[in-house]
Structures are given as structure tokens and as C-alpha cells.
């Protein structure tokens, strides 16, 4: 599968995403540039973590107007696979390609940690190699990861099965103590209504080698590869 990883001014994890895809997974992955509208025929676009445009105004608010985002929006509407990680998730929400929004952590602190996550829906392109209820561990590092949506929207997102991962404790329960940032319903990852656009606050690209703390992230990427037709 051909992947593209977008670099915005202020992206930080583009290199790690490319490393995971190319070096660890042996996939074809190219770097995409925010100012270039072309997607060069990639089959999955990754919006990496970082602080695009310095998080000015709101996290992800300005990256949304990058030339490349016009193509990403079109690509997503046509059913293309789009994965937003951390800042990429924020950008996709700002671009209204995903429901809700991400705002300041309830602690107001930047969090750098490794968290347990429970798979909520295993029949999506991002999670198809998992089973519902699987608990995985991924790193998080963010200051604005509190997922919010209106009551109506949240109810719809839950009803349609768009919640993919929830923050849980060691026993796999979505308790308030296990919620690192105050996200509504402990939500850590969601999909759009048509299940081709995905956003997650945890970083799968930082969890691809056992020697470096775990490889649970790989399985998410491989799920998308399995989706390749």
C-alpha cells in the first residue's frame, strides 16, 4: 500500500511515522508537503502529530487551510483512508472531517505517558486486526486532547460505533481515573460516519518496536494495510 505523510510547518512526528511505515513495516511511504496540493496517488494519508502553525488560535485551526488539505478533504469524501494522529486528529476535527473537537486537557498540563486503551469497534479499517475488548498500550503526549462534542453529536457517535478506542485502567474499565485528559466518555479515537477517516490522540508510530516500549501501534497500521484491496 502506498502511504503519504503530510509535513505541516511545526509537524514533529512525520519522521517517526515515515520510519514506522518504511523501515519497520516495509511499506511504500512518501512525504507530502503542506503547500503542495497533490497527493501523488497515495492510498492512505497520515496527518502526523506536532504543533502545526505553533498551535496558534486553536490546535489544528490553521493547518486546515493548507493547500494540501483541500485535496485531503476531496480524497476523504471519495472514500480514501485518512489517519490523523494527535495534532493530525485536531486538524481533522477543525476541518470537520471528524465530529467534535479537541480542547485543553482538564488538568491544564501537558501529558507525556503510556496509557491503556480498549478497542471498542473492531470492524473498521483501522481496527480490523483486533477484537472488541482488546486492551493495548500506546504513548500519549499532548496538551489539548480532551475530546468534546455536543450531547446530540456524542450520542450519535456512540450509537453509530464511531468510537474506536477508549482510555481504560489495567482491568480494562473506562473509569474517570483512567481518563488522562478528561475526554467525554473516555474517548481516545474516533472514525467518521463512513469509517474511512480516523483520529486518535495516542501515538501508534511511537509504538512499533518491542525494544522501544512496545509494538501495539504496528497492529493499527497493519489493519489499514489489510484494508488494501
Amino acid at each position, binding site marked *: 500500500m502506498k502511504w503519504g505523510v503530510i509535513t505541516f510547518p511545526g509537524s514533529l512526528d512525520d519522521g517517526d511515522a515515515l520510519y514506522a511505515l518504511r523501515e519497520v513495516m516495509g511499506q511504500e511511504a512518501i512525504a507530502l508537503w503542506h503547500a503542495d496540493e497533490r497527493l501523488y496517488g497515495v492510498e492512505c494519508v497520515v496527518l502526523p502529530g506536532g504543533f502545526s502553525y505553533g498551535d496558534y*488560535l*486553536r490546535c489544528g*485551526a490553521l493547518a486546515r*487551510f493548507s493547500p494540501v488539505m483541500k485535496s485531503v478533504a476531496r480524497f476523504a469524501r471519495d472514500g480514501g483512508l485518512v489517519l490523523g494522529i494527535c495534532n493530525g486528529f485536531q486538524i481533522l*476535527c*477543525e476541518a470537520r472531517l471528524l465530529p*467534535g*473537537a479537541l*480542547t*485543553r*486537557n*482538564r*488538568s*491544564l498540563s501537558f501529558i507525556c505517558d503510556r496509557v491503556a486503551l480498549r478497542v471498542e469497534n473492531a470492524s473498521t479499517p483501522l481496527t480490523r486486526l483486533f477484537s472488541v475488548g482488546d486492551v493495548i498500550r500506546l504513548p500519549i503526549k499532548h496538551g489539548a486532547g*480532551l475530546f*468534546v*462534542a*455536543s450531547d446530540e*453529536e456524542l450520542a450519535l457517535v456512540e450509537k453509530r460505533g464511531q468510537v474506536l478506542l477508549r482510555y481504560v485502567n489495567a482491568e480494562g474499565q473506562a473509569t474517570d481515573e483512567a481518563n488522562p485528559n*478528561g475526554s467525554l466518555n473516555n474517548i481516545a479515537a474516533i472514525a467518521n460516519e463512513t469509517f474511512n477517516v480516523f483520529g486518535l490522540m495516542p501515538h501508534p508510530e511511537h509504538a512499533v518496536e518491542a525494544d522501544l516500549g512496545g509494538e501495539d501501534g504496528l497492529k493499527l497500521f497493519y489493519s489499514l494495510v489489510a484494508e488494501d484491496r
Partner: protein
Amino acid sequence: MRVEVFVTPREGILDPQGRAVEHSLKSLGFELVSGVRVGKYIVLELATESPAQARQLAEQMCEQLLANTVIEDYRIRVEGE
């Protein structure tokens, strides 16, 4: 024409900053305080003499960029209106 835009967390949306500031104000002894919301204040100049046009443009700016209406409300003040 000078336009001022006030962006605040939407009613009912959790505002961790507002809550922390309210907490600090109370610990300073301002016990009468409640309902603190922390937002943004944006000032801009528009090259028009029409307050109506200025307001209309500012509204478009808020809807498209200055506010995220999923989580934020905005209020616009137009000079001379």
C-alpha cells in the same frame, strides 16, 4: 473600521482554564466569583465604512476560522455601531 471579536467556550462545554482561574480567584479570597470563562479577544481593522458590512464580514470570519462553533461562542463589536 475597527472590529472586536470575543470568543468564549460555549455554554455547557467544559472550560478547564475558566475553572482553574475561578478556583485561584476563590483561594485569593474572591468568594463572590462564579461562572469564570476564559476566551480570546481579537481586534482587527476592516477597510470599509459600513458597520453592517463589517459585521457581516466578521461573522463570516468567526464561522470559518476565528471560532470553532463546536465548542465556542463568539460576540462581535463593530466600532460606531
